[in-house]
């Protein structure tokens, strides 16, 4: 997946602070619905988006779902996280299945930078991005901590 596709206007709610919590949240924010979120293309597309967000150093696994006891204390590289999620995510999963799967959160640097820019709990996200951020991809590049290697 090309980074430019990730930042297209249709996907903008993916970048809300709550836009990635569950795999089903991610799928909904890239256009999948209850009817097609169980498809192999949803899985492929979803994994590509998660991989890209990890590469951009934007997200981390918040909770490993029903696998948390086994995985929470382990450290994984981005590619290992993707491989792990790939193995846990069976094509055909839908709706409630995702409530027991890994959850994600945006990294603190991103959330803090958004707050600094003026985002509150009641700010409309689309208006905020349009009026305060502009080019979100460029803004992320400018605000990302410089000492991280986001291409692991």
């Amino acid at each position, binding site marked *: 997946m090309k980074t430019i596709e990730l930042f297209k206007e249709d996907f903008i709610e993916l970048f809300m602070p*709550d836009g*990635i919590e569950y795999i089903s949240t991610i799928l909904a924010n890239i256009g999948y619905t*209850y009817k097609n979120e169980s498809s192999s293309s949803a899985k492929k597309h979803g994994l590509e988006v998660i991989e890209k967000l990890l590469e951009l150093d934007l997200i981390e696994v918040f909770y490993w779902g029903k696998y*948390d006891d086994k995985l929470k204390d382990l450290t994984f590289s981005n590619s290992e996280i993707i491989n792990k999620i790939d193995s846990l995510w069976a094509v055909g999963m839908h*709706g409630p299945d995702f409530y027991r799967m890994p959850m994600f959160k945006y990294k603190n640097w991103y959330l803090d930078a958004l707050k600094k820019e003026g985002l509150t*709990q009641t*700010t409309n996200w689309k208006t905020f991005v349009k009026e305060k951020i502009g080019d979100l991809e460029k803004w992320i590049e400018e605000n990302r901590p410089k000492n991280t290697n986001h291409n692991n």
Partner: protein
Amino acid sequence: MDYIHDNPVAAGFITQATQWKYSSARNIARVDPAIEIFRMKVVLPTVVGTRSRRATSNTIRIVKTNSPITKARELFNSLTKHKIGNLIDDGNGVLRANMGNGNYINYRQSSASTSNFPATISLDFRAAGIWTKVRNVKFIAP
């Protein structure tokens, strides 16, 4: 079929066939989720609408209230009183109620929310086709 369903009623265990835990009448009564849709579309906005604010998107509403955890749990209990079976514990402070036909209502403590709200109620009524995305009501102290 009605005869079978009415047996527990006749036996005096219950007053309506749908109250009998082991009766398929409970499922038959749920084939059409219209009542739950009504509750979500009409009752919920009435309950939280007057004291909630739209958050970052139209899929999230924020309710500022004293004792947010207690209030959220009360609303969750009220909304899910017609759930099928027992609450499902998804771990990490998530309780899920099966509202029938692939529709669910979740109660989440802050441990299962990345936004640090004390409590969140998620309305997953996508299967019913009334919303394409899950609706979240987040509770916070004023």
